[in-house]
C-alpha cells in the first residue's frame, strides 16, 4: 500500500522525537474515530444505534447485524430503491471521468505539438477559466439544456456528463498539457519525419506515454464526480437520474431519525471511492505532485 516516493522512508537520521511521535499517533487516532464510529454503528441493531453510543458496542461485541445494509438497499427514496441510485452513480461517474479527460488529452496534444497561430494565447485563456466558479454558470447552463437548441433526448444523465465535462475541462487541459508538452520532442519529431499523422502519434505514442498523468487525473475526476451533489442536483432533472449523494441527502431530510439506514447508506456510498482510492493511491499522489510540487 505504501508508495516508496511520497510515503518514502529515508533510513538515515530519524529526527522524530517522542513528543512528535505522540502528536502524530494522537492525530491519526483522532482522524479515524469518526469513521470508525460509522463503521461500527452500521452493523449494530436499530435499537442499539438510536439509544446507545457506538463506543458501548465494545462491551457486547456479539450484537451485530446485516439488517441495516439490506434495509437501506430496499429502502425507497422518492419511490426508487436505494440500489437504483448506486447504479445511477456508476452511470454518471464513469463517463464523467472518461469524457473530459479524453477531450482534454486531444486538446492538450494540439496545444503542445501542433503548430498554429494563437496557440499560447489559447492556453492562457483556458488556464484563466479555472477561476470561474461552476456556481456562476449553473443557471445559464440549465437554461441552455432546457431550451430549444438542446436535444430533449439527451436530457438526464447525458446532461450531467456534459456538465461535468465542462467543469472539469480547464484543470484537465492544464495538467495534461503540462505533462504532454514535457514529453521528449525528438520522439514526436522522428515520428513526424517518418510520415506518421497526428492521430497516429497521439493514439500510438502520446497516450501510452501519458498513462500516469491520465490515471491520476482520472482518479481525481472520478472521486469528485462520485462525491458530487450540486451538479447532479441541478442538471439531473428528476430523481430517476440522481446519484447516491442525492438519495442520502433526501434520507437525511426525510428519515432523519432512521440512523440505522443512514449509517449503512453512508458506508455503501463510501465503499467505491475508498476502493478506488486505496488501490490507485500511488497514481493519485504522483499525479497531484506533477501538478504542484515542481518547486
Amino acid at each position, binding site marked *: 500500500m505504501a508508495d516508496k516516493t511520497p510515503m518514502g522512508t529515508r533510513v538515515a537520521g530519524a529526527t522524530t522525537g517522542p513528543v512528535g511521535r505522540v502528536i502524530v499517533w494522537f492525530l491519526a487516532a483522532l482522524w479515524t474515530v469518526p469513521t470508525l464510529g460509522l463503521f461500527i454503528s452500521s452493523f449494530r441493531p436499530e435499537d442499539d444505534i*438510536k439509544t446507545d453510543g457506538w463506543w458501548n458496542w465494545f462491551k457486547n461485541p456479539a450484537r451485530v447485524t446485516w439488517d441495516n445494509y439490506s434495509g437501506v438497499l430496499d429502502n425507497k427514496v422518492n419511490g426508487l430503491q436505494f*440500489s437504483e441510485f448506486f447504479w445511477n452513480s456508476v452511470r454518471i461517474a464513469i463517463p464523467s471521468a*472518461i469524457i473530459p479527460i479524453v*477531450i482534454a488529452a486531444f486538446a492538450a496534444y494540439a496545444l503542445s505539438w501542433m503548430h498554429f497561430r494563437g496557440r499560447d494565447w489559447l492556453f492562457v485563456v483556458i488556464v484563466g477559466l479555472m477561476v470561474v466558479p461552476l*456556481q*456562476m454558470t*449553473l*443557471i445559464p447552463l440549465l437554461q441552455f439544456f432546457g431550451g430549444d437548441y438542446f436535444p430533449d433526448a439527451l436530457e438526464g444523465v447525458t446532461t450531467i456528463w456534459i456538465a461535468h465535462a*465542462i467543469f472539469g475541462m480547464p484543470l484537465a487541459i492544464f495538467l495534461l498539457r503540462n505533462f504532454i508538452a514535457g514529453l521528449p520532442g525528438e520522439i514526436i519529431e522522428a515520428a513526424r519525419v517518418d510520415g506518421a499523422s497526428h492521430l497516429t502519434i497521439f493514439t500510438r505514442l502520446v497516450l501510452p506515454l501519458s498513462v500516469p498523468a491520465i490515471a491520476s487525473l482520472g482518479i481525481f475526476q472520478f472521486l469528485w464526480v*462520485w462525491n458530487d451533489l450540486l451538479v447532479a442536483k441541478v442538471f439531473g432533472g428528476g430523481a430517476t437520474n440522481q446519484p447516491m449523494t442525492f438519495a442520502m441527502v433526501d434520507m437525511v431530510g426525510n428519515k432523519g431519525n432512521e440512523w440505522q439506514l443512514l449509517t449503512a447508506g453512508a458506508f455503501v456510498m463510501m465503499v467505491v471511492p475508498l476502493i478506488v482510492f486505496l488501490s490507485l493511491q500511488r497514481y493519485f499522489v504522483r499525479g497531484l505532485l506533477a501538478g504542484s510540487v515542481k518547486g
Partner: protein
Amino acid sequence: MIGLFDVGGRGLLIAIVGLGVAALLAAAWLVPAVMRALPVRMQPQASTLARLGAGATVWGVSAMAWIVLGGGRSSVSKIVTTLYYVTNGIVALAALFGILYLIASLFPEPFREWFRTAAFLLPAVLLLFGLVVPAILNVSDSFYDRNDEWYGFGNYVDIFTKDANIKVFSNTLWWGIIVTIASTVMGITIARFADRMRGEAVAKAAIFLPTAISMVGAGVIWNFVYSPREYGLLNSILPGDPEFFLQDSSLFGITSPWLPGKNTLFIMIVVIWIQAGFSTVVISAALKGVPDDLVEAAKIDGATDRQAFYKVVLPYIKSTIITVATTTVLAVLKIFDIIQTMGKGGSFGTSTIANEMYEQGFPQDNEGLGAAWAVMLFLLVLPIVFVNSRNQRAQREGR
C-alpha cells in the same frame, strides 16, 4: 444484499454475453491471422479497423443486452442498463473524434493540416464555451430581480446591507480563513513529525482517508459526534446537559452578522478533517525533496531541530505550502454540500455564498440574487488566483 444482486432474465443475459465473448475470441484468433496474410503496407489500417471492430462488438453486445433486458427493475437489468449507458458515452466520444478527423482529412493539402488541428481542439473549445458564455450571461442575470424586472445593482446593494446576507458573506470569508490556515498547519505538523517515523505510511493513510469521503457522507459520520442524543460522542464526553452544537448560531453568546456562529465552527472542523489529508500528503512529498545536506549544514552551525525546521526547511518548501493553501482556499470558498447536509441548507445562520447561490437560484426562485452571489464568489476567487500565478511566475524566473 438483496437489491444489488437479485435475479431476472439471467439466462438471456448469459447467452448474449456469451455470444459477445465468443465473437471477441474468434476475432482475437482471426485478426492476427488475417494481418499476417496482408502486405506490410496495409497493416496499420487493418489494425485500426480491427480495433474499431472490437469496439463496435462491445457496443453491439451491450446494446443487444439493453434491448432485451434494459429498463427493468431487476439487478441484472440495472447492470445491463448501466453498461449500455457507459459504452454509449464512450462510443459517442470515439465516434466524435473519428468523424471530425475524417472530415478534416477530406480537405486538400494546404487546409488539411489546419482542419485536423481544429478537429483536435473543437470538442474542448465547445465545452469551454459552456463556461464562458454562461459566466457572461450570469453577470447580466444578476441585474434582474425576483420577477425578472430590471433591478440595477439592487441585488449587490442587498448583499451588503441586509444582515442575513452580510452573515453569508462573512461566513464565507471565515471559512476561507479558518479552514485554510487550520488544514495547512495540520498538514505541516503531521508531515513534519511523521517524516521518517516508524509507521509513517499507516499514520498518513489514516489522515488521508477522509479525503475520499463525500461531504454528504461526512455529514452522516459526524452526526455521531455532534448529536445531542445518547449516541453523540462529544456530548457524552463533555459534562453537563446535551448541547445542540449545530444549532447555536451565536459565538459564545455574541450574535453578530460579522462573526461566524459556533455551529459554523463545528461544521468547519469536519471540513478540516476532510482537507488535512491533502495538505499532509503534498507537503510531506515536498519535505522528502529537501536536500539532507541543507539540514545537516544548519545543524553543524549549531541550529536545533526546531530552528532548522523553521529557518531552513519551511522556507525551502514555501511554494508548495502556497500551492496547498491556494488549492484549499479555492475549494473552501465554494463550500456547498456540507452546508446542505449539516447546516440543513443554511439554516441557523450557517449559509455560505455557494449555498446561498443555490438556495436563491433554485428553491427560492430568485435567480437574480443567486447570480449576484455567483459574481461575488468570482470576485473573491479572482485576486487569489491572480496573486498565486504571479508568485509562481516570479519564482520560475528567479530560478
